[in-house]
C-alpha cells in the first residue's frame, strides 16, 4: 500500500509553516531537508547523543525520535531561532565567550538543551547543569567549558 503524505502545520522559529511530510520521516529530516534548517544535526539517531535537540512546545526533545507528522500543531524552536534581529542570544554569546565550541558539531543540540534548562530553571547549580545536559554528548570532550558557559549565562554575565 503506498503511504500517503501527511499534512502538517507547525510554527517553526516564529513562522507558520504548512507542508506535506512523509509518514516515516522524522522531525529532524523535515527540519533539515524540507525546511533547510541544517543547524540541527543528525548523529546517533537513537536518542542517545542529543545532537538533534530542538524545543517543541516549550520542552527539549530529540527530533530524531519524533515523526514530522507528530509536530502538527506544535511550536518548534531550532538553533536558528535563538538569535533575534541578527544578534545572538545571551546563552550563545556565553558559549563563544567561554570558548565552549571545539569542532562544533554537538553545539546546536547542546545550546538547545541548555536553553531549555535555563527556561525552566534560570539559576541551575553545576550539578543541575550536568543533569540537564546528560543527554548531549561532546566527542571533543569539551564539557568543562560548556558547563562553564551555561553557568555564566545563568548568572547573567553576558547581559
Amino acid at each position, binding site marked *: 500500500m503506498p503511504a500517503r503524505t501527511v499534512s502538517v502545520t507547525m510554527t517553526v522559529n516564529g513562522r507558520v509553516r504548512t507542508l506535506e511530510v512523509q509518514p*516515516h520521516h*522524522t522531525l529532524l529530516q523535515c527540519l533539515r531537508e524540507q525546511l533547510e534548517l541544517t543547524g540541527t544535526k543528525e548523529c546517533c539517531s537513537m*536518542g542517545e547523543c542529543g545532537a538533534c535537540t530542538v524545543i517543541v512546545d516549550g520542552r527539549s526533545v530529540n527530533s530524531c*525520535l519524533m515523526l514530522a507528522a507528530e509536530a502538527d500543531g506544535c511550536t518548534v524552536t531550532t538553533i536558528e531561532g535563538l538569535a533575534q534581529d541578527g544578534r545572538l542570544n545571551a546563552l550563545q554569546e556565553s558559549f563563544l565567550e567561554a570558548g565552549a565550541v571545539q569542532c562544533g558539531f554537538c553545539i546546536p543540540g547542546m545550546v538547545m538543551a541548555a536553553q531549555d534548562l535555563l527556561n525552566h530553571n534560570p539559576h541551575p547549580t553545576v550539578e543541575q547543569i550536568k543533569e540537564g545536559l546528560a*543527554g548531549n554528548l561532546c566527542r571533543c570532550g569539551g564539557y568543562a567549558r560548556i558547563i562553564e558557559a551555561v553557568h555564566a549565562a545563568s548568572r547573567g554575565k553576558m547581559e
Partner: protein
Amino acid sequence: METLQTSSLTRFIYARPGTLDEAFQLLEDHGPQACLLAGGTDLIVQLRARKLTPRIVIDLKKIDSLRRDITETQSLLRIGALTLLSNIIDDPRVNRHFPVLAQAAATVGSVQIRNRATLPGNICNASPAADTVPALLVHQAIVNLSSRTAERAVPLKDFFVGPGKTVRRAGEIVSSIDLPVPEERVAASFARLTRRRGVDLASINVCCLVSAAGLIRFAFGAVGPRPILVEDGSGRLADPAMDAREKERLLLGLLEQTSPISDVRAGKEYRSAMLLVLSLRVLQEALDILRAQRRE
C-alpha cells in the same frame, strides 16, 4: 550488539485518530500490523532498526478522551495514557504519595527523552529493565485497558509476559494507570546499577517498599524475562534486631524467583551479586525513611 546506523525508518501509514472509536476501528482493520504511538522514544528506535515493521502507526496523541494529566480521587491517582515522564517527576501528588516513582522516572534516559516518553508507553514497551516499573509494582499499580467492547483492569504484576510482550490484546489501548494511595504509612526506596551515570539502561534495578506493619515488597528489573514482584509478610526483614547474616539468608530466599542472564550490560554472576547488595541497600533506606517519618 546494536550497530550505529542512520538509515531512515521503515515505511508505514501514519494515522492520527481523534476518538477512541476511530482508533479501535483502525486496530480492528489492521490487527497485528498496527503499532500504537504515544511518546515514540522506544517505538521510533525500533522502526529504524526494523525490529518492528508495521503497516500502520496509530498516533494516540489527538484522541480527545486520552488524558495527558494525573487526576486524583479519594483513594487513587489516575495517570492518563499520555502522561509524560517529566510530568510524573514534577507532579506534587506523585511526590507526596509515591516519591519513589518520581525518583525512578527521573532516571529514565535524558531530559529530552523524559520530555517525550510517556509512563504508559514505558510499561507497554515491556522492557524487563524499565525503570519506572519496580516503583509501580511495589505500589500495586493497576493498568486500565479499553477496547471497543469492554474495559478491564489488570494488576501490573500480571501485565508482563516477557521481553516486549504484555497481556494487552490487539484491539486494546491502555487508557490509564491507577496507583492506590497507601492506606497505612509506607516508605520506599529505589536503586539501579548502570555502567555510566547518564543515559544508560539499567543492568539491574530494585525497589523496596516497607509498611509500618512490617510488610515488605521488593520489585526487581533486568534480572528475568519480566519484572518480578515478591512480598514478605513475616515482619522479620523490618526487625532492626535481626542478625545481618540471617537477613541476607531471608533476602536470598526472596531473590530465588530472579533469573539473571549475561548480556552486553552485565554478566549473570555480577548481576546476582549486585542484586543482593542493592536489595540490602534499598531495604535499609526504606526502613530509615519509615523511621524518620515516625519521628516527624
